[in-house]
């Protein structure tokens, strides 16, 4: 029997597991940052964290608050420009990108711009793309980390800030986006979701501890496909939790918000 953990701790641990060693990853603040640090301390000592403002592979003296702050280049390999980093991604050298968003649809399209049906009179205005459109356009595999409910997982996002598979198979390529790039996984409090290769539609691949497949469907605003075999997400191990709490985020900036 495993230790107690909260939903954020689960998200971080699950996200950390899908990172591969010897890969490059665009890292944002919050959960992706904690997940990358955790992965580095466990199975991915040689994942290279890249920050969009220019920092590369820092030895983090603490969790960065911003993707542009001084911790993102602390004893790093390189400190560079946003242009260089984006060009590196456009050239095909960045494997993973992590994203969030207020809304997501069945093709993994993300909205972080606005709620409403009139762009010039939004009901709610969000920050906008930031680096999300760039990451979603240019990285090989984008991973979304988000809580799951019917307000977030919607039939149609109010605004496509960041491209998922757009309208389905072949649509990214037709739009001019780089071949072979696109959404990879969606990591939520309820399940790990992936994409069906034929249709590029989102599907359930693994349900989290204590969650049923039915729960996942109920909390999604569109019809989710199901992988041929749906796994059970492993609970956070004691080692994961210990390192996460003691070394990665001892101040609870991310996991005890």
């Amino acid at each position: 029997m495993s230790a107690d953990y909260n939903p954020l701790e689960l998200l971080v641990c699950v996200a950390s597991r899908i990172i591969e060693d010897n890969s490059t990853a665009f890292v944002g603040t919050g959960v992706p940052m904690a997940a990358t640090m955790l992965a580095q301390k466990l199975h991915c000592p040689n994942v290279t964290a890249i920050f969009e403002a220019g920092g590369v592979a820092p030895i983090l003296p603490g969790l960065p608050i911003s993707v542009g702050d001084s911790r993102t280049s602390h004893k790093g390999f390189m400190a560079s420009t946003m242009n260089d980093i984006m060009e590196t991604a456009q050239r095909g050298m960045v494997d993973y990108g992590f994203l969030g968003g207020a809304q997501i649809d069945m093709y993994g399209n993300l909205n972080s711009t606005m709620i409403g049906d009139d762009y010039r009179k939004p009901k709610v205005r969000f920050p906008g793309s930031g680096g999300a459109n760039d990451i979603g356009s240019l990285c090989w595999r984008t991973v979304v980390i988000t809580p799951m409910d019917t307000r977030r997982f919607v039939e149609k996002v109010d605004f496509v800030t960041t491209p998922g598979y757009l309208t389905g198979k072949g649509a990214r390529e037709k739009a001019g986006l780089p071949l072979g790039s696109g959404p990879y996984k969606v990591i939520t409090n309820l399940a790990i979701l992936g994409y069906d290769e034929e249709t590029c539609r989102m599907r359930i691949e693994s349900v989290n501890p204590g969650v049923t497949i039915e729960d996942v469907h109920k909390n999604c605003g569109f019809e989710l496909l199901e992988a041929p075999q749906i796994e059970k997400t492993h609970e956070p191990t004691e080692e994961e939790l210990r390192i996460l709490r003691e070394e990665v985020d001892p101040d609870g900036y991310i996991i005890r918000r």
Partner: protein
Amino acid sequence: MNNETTDIEEGEEELFTPVDPDEMRAAFHKKSRALKDKVTTVKKAVSELIHDGDYLAVGGFGHVRIPTAILYEIVRQNKKNLGMAGHTSIYDSDLLATSGCLNRCDISYVIGYEIRGLSASARRAFESGKIKVTDWSNGALAWRFFAASAGLSFIPTRILLGTDTFKRSAAKTVTCPFTGKKYAALPALYPDVGIIHVHRADTYGNCQIDDGILISDTYLARASRRLIITTEELVPHEEIRANPQATVIPYWCVDAVVEVPYGSHPGNMPGKYWFDEDFFKMYLQGVKTEEGTKKLYDEYIYGVDDFHEYIDKIGGTEKMMELRNIEKLIFSRT
């Protein structure tokens, strides 16, 4: 000669800045190359170089290495109808939007404070309908600055395509004459005024930034018609010459230099001081209401005469030493 027919797709929102490279070359032709003392005060820099209606671009990462003194002075002088590149923009765009100085904005990131949450006052301002917006991404604005710094009118890129971000931008598409592939053509962004805070500058305006996280500041500096530099420290010209490889902005881009120690507060200044999280907490709490906003702005901006007085108000050199200790890992408060 080949004859080619191309469909051009176009974003629907407004392009706020000129793109004609010959018009901009003519402007840069007139820009002084004189090696002269450009040191001035925050007040004068803002009153002489920033006019109502100007389009601004602010260096740093919105709450990292920001020219706070200039931003406060713009608010204090109540500049009107400003435009702005909301590029990796946090405290900077919040100040200008909340204070009513802004009437148009190219957005890649505004309102948000990264993991700290959102600014209620910035959101009110951007939802008020009083600020015309056009949406982009961080990469898009970074490349738009690059295109301008290179004296072009556009640059091809592989972002924005297929999204509403493209539709609500002022980008177009362009076809590669070699591959036939479709690119998003981003229009160059030439700001009227650039404002950048640096670690070190000489009186001519040669600038060095220590940590190397340059975001797009080298391009933004080159792209700007006029450029105001605030610096933690003015240094003798010889100190610049001792390390030419560290100079990231040459003097010919610069119109004014102001020495402003602690000039990025409440933002982080790499190698110098960490974020003032207490201030940000107070600020984000305060701006939740109109009254709280007014009180904050009266207290820290309208009610102080200059940045020295502001630094006294936020805790003076004692506070700044504390933030330095966190930044330099001498003591950690958290």
